[in-house]
């Protein structure tokens, strides 16, 4: 399983000029990817612009939208942006798309909430088509853009299975994740797709005595879910051990790529996570040895 880290683009207190610095640090390793979140009516930075800044200062690390609320955007211009990013960070972009959960983001948009599911399905097909037909063209040489779909409902899984390359799960206790992975695989098989979907998921973390600040952020960010915000805040990973256990459980349950999002906007959060991942990698290499 690969492990990525979030850019702090969705954290209200972030120093906007620090985003590029975060990306540069992350590129030094050991994390596999940099991910962004998308909110309109919130104190946050645009996901595609943030990834563009990251692209300019990185050479290795994968870039991921997790997720982009596609129905809020006009399709051809969104395709142009994503393909441009994919060209400027050659082949490193994976675009995760979903309908998003917040009504207020739609309230300020020109696109309605009522038809967002169907619109996302149409957009998904259309982005592929625009890329393949060369109607939306970008310079450079890179593999086709990988598209993921987020959401756990039947229609979301159906959309994913029919038109995406993989599935982006929104985080849950590992046992529930295990069942949901089975559903994603079943949707894929039901649609008659060969192989299986790539499975991505995410979690939030706060390391080094910042748990309370991290929880406060999640309670605020998810305030629109009502009482559920508390559950999400309770799921915050606050120690190296919790992160290792969670990652292991996710790997065992069939996750291909886990994204860990910061909840505190300081650069040391990235370093602390890098330490956890580095030590986890070396430990597991050690235990694997005797078996081989």
């Amino acid at each position: 399983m690969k492990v990525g880290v979030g850019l702090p683009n969705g954290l209200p207190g972030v120093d906007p000029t620090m985003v590029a610095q975060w990306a540069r640090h992350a590129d030094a390793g050991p994390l596999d990817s940099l991910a962004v979140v998308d909110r309109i009516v919130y104190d946050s930075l645009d996901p595609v612009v943030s990834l563009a800044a990251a692209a300019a200062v990185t050479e290795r690390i994968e870039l991921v939208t997790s997720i982009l609320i596609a129905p809020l955007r006009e399709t051809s211009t969104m395709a142009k942006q994503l393909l441009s990013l994919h060209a400027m960070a050659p082949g490193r972009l994976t675009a995760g798309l979903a309908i998003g959960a917040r009504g207020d983001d739609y309230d300020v948009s020109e696109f309605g909430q009522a038809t967002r599911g169907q619109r996302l399905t149409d957009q998904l097909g259309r982005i592929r088509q625009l890329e393949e037909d060369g109607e939306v063209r970008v310079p450079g040489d890179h593999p086709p853009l990988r598209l993921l779909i987020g959401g756990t409902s039947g229609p979301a899984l159906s959309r994913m299975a029919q038109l995406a390359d993989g599935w982006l799960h929104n985080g849950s206790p590992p046992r529930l994740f295990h069942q949901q992975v089975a559903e994603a695989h079943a949707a894929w098989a039901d649609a008659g797709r060969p192989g299986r979907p790539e499975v991505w998921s995410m979690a939030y973390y706060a390391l080094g005595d910042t748990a309370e600040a991290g929880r406060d952020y999640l309670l605020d960010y998810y305030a629109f879910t009502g009482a559920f915000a508390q559950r999400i805040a309770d799921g915050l990973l606050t120690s190296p051990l919790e992160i290792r256990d969670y990652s292991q459980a996710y790997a065992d349950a069939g996750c291909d790529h886990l994204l860990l999002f910061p909840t505190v906007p300081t650069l040391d959060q990235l370093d602390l996570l890098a330490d956890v991942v580095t030590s986890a990698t070396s430990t597991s290499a050690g235990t694997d040895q005797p078996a081989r």
Partner: protein
Amino acid sequence: MRIECVGGGPGGLYTAILLKAGDPSRDVVVHERNAADDTFGFGVVFSAATLRGLEGADAPSFERLWEACARWDPVEVRYGGERIRARGNSFAAISRHRLLHILQERARELGVDLRFRDEVADVSDLMDADLVLGADGINSRVRAHFAEHFRPRLTVEGSKFIWLGTTQRFDAFTFIFTESDAGRFQAHIYPFSAGVGTFIVECSDDTWRAAGLDAVNSDDLAPGESDHATIAHLQDLFADHLDGHDLVANNSKWLDWTTVRNESWRHDRVVLLGDAAHTAHFSIGSGTKLAMEDAMALADAISTTTTLDHALDAYVSARKPSVEGIQEAASESLDWFARYGRYWGFDPPQFAYSLLTRSTRVDYDNLRQRDHRLVDDLDRWYAARDGRVPLVPRAPAFDPIDVGPTRLANRLALVATPDDGAVVGMPSSQHLDALVRWADADAALVLVDGVAVSATGRATITDAGVWTDEQGRRWAEALATARRGGDARVGLRLVHAGPRGATQPRDRGIGRPLPRDRAWPLVAASPVRWSSTAHRPVELDVGDMEAVVQDHVEAARRAADAGFDAIEIHAGHGGLLASFLSPLTNHRDDDHGGDIAHRMRFPLRVVEGVRAAWPRDRLLSVCLSASDLEPDGIDHDDVLAVVDQLRANGVDLVHVVSGQTTARSRPEYGPAFNARWSDLVRNEGSGPVMTSGNMPTVDDVNHVLMSGQADVCVLGRPLPALPDWLTGTRTAERVDITTTTERTAGTKEQA
């Protein structure tokens, strides 16, 4: 802090106890409209988990409660003259009267202000308190007062029930199923003290009327008055189980089961708990148990959170999702009781298994963990249906079955992915290699998906086909290789994609249309596009129908010549034949449209033609979407009518799937998601039925088979990944035959 609790039932009292015990400086007032000993009802059941919670929350009340409880382990199902017991459960029950007495006593000790005969006329009078609890039951006034904030939804579920008691001794949680001329009745019975048990009788609305039990209107009875005419009737109906003992009345009258849900459980300083917040059908657990669990969650949230505001949110977030889970299980259970007439006639073991696993919270695997001897016996019963009783129990998945003239060595099937590399229908070597591996995977039936009956019947440009003799010969060669490996029955699933045709290869998605210049013309029942991006089909002309029938017939003949054991005609998932069956896609006004008898004419012509060309001694299957999973689609009766005609036309196996009639279908992909449809076809229709969809393990298959929802199951893809140490052995096998022979022998001995 001042806490006002409306309602002095177990939920309200227990919350008051825990809050007062947690901090004696709190002022806790309980307002109860009835008198202290003025109680209705019989027993209340607790599970082991609830008891553990009660013990941890307040030891003094737990000890008194534990002393007063009746405890037992088994669940017993009485049906068809047999009694089947499942052990490994743990229940305790207490009379409601005794429970209230214990809780009142404990509350008084702690200094809770208990006010009986104190009806709260206006909830706003209490709003100067720090916390107001709506624990005032199913007809909650607190909920009604703030209805715009709680947004309650009350659903009358169409089942009639009546609470009674009995002096007959029962030593298990007992379900009795019985039948009279009017219909079927079931009793849910549990003991709660020496010599008394709760005896709830339930039936459908129709049965209730047919039995004349509507003679007494419950609304006309005074509070506390019982419906004695009903009681006499039921006394008679269940006489065999009562051994002369009486049914006892206590405010007993027929009620409609109502499920209560609230969008929100909290408004400002007011929270709901117990029946005011939620109800779940008694077949899943008692409302009192849920109310007392609410009390524990609320008290815990208040004691572990810094502000009351956060605490109330924490209570709701901790409790609401799990209650909704229980309500979901309860609705599955209700649904089972509403449809079990379909299972009337099952052998008792299968009926009992179906009942015990009805809520989907218990399946084959965890029933085995609770009571392995019962599951061993069920396995033996399953295997013994052909007359031979096996000494060693065998899981249902590995039981052989005769499907028409074909014996399948077990009940596992595999459906191989369609070819993604065929050139003009000629199957790719990669695909044929895969077929050989699948045939060696120990499933008794292997079907190759997506084999087109004509070039224009292909879904994608890379689909394999069997529309030329040369293609037939390629299949024959591959099949000959596959035969050397396994002894699976191997078949082709014949497809005419109809409106789903002319699409790009599946590696980057399905249903992506080919550019116009490369697309072939599509046909369908009516010119309805499969999705918003698909090419529009033209209506299949009556004059062209015979050619399509012939394509299927020729394909079947080639499959027969190639030596295949089975074919499946795909008439589901929105292909050409499916487009005729569904009213969503068939708008014809000729002889092939309209009611189901007309809509199925053309698909039946195909089946008839294929049956005539396909050898009688080989398996013929038809795949069908039993629901379109969108509004105004094909209904149950139409599906059963189609299945009836398929059987009459010599179809051995019906493979039941759902959805994909158009891209708008809204599927859910939970465990064995098509089994509810195969259940319909198998138990309201006739003949062997196969299902597929999210059954990744053999135990998933065992569950579907044991509960009688299908006869053969398609094991989920992808096949489980093999660990390195296992694939390592396999590689070694190829490299050095002598050493691996020894190794394999060693492994077998260890196993």
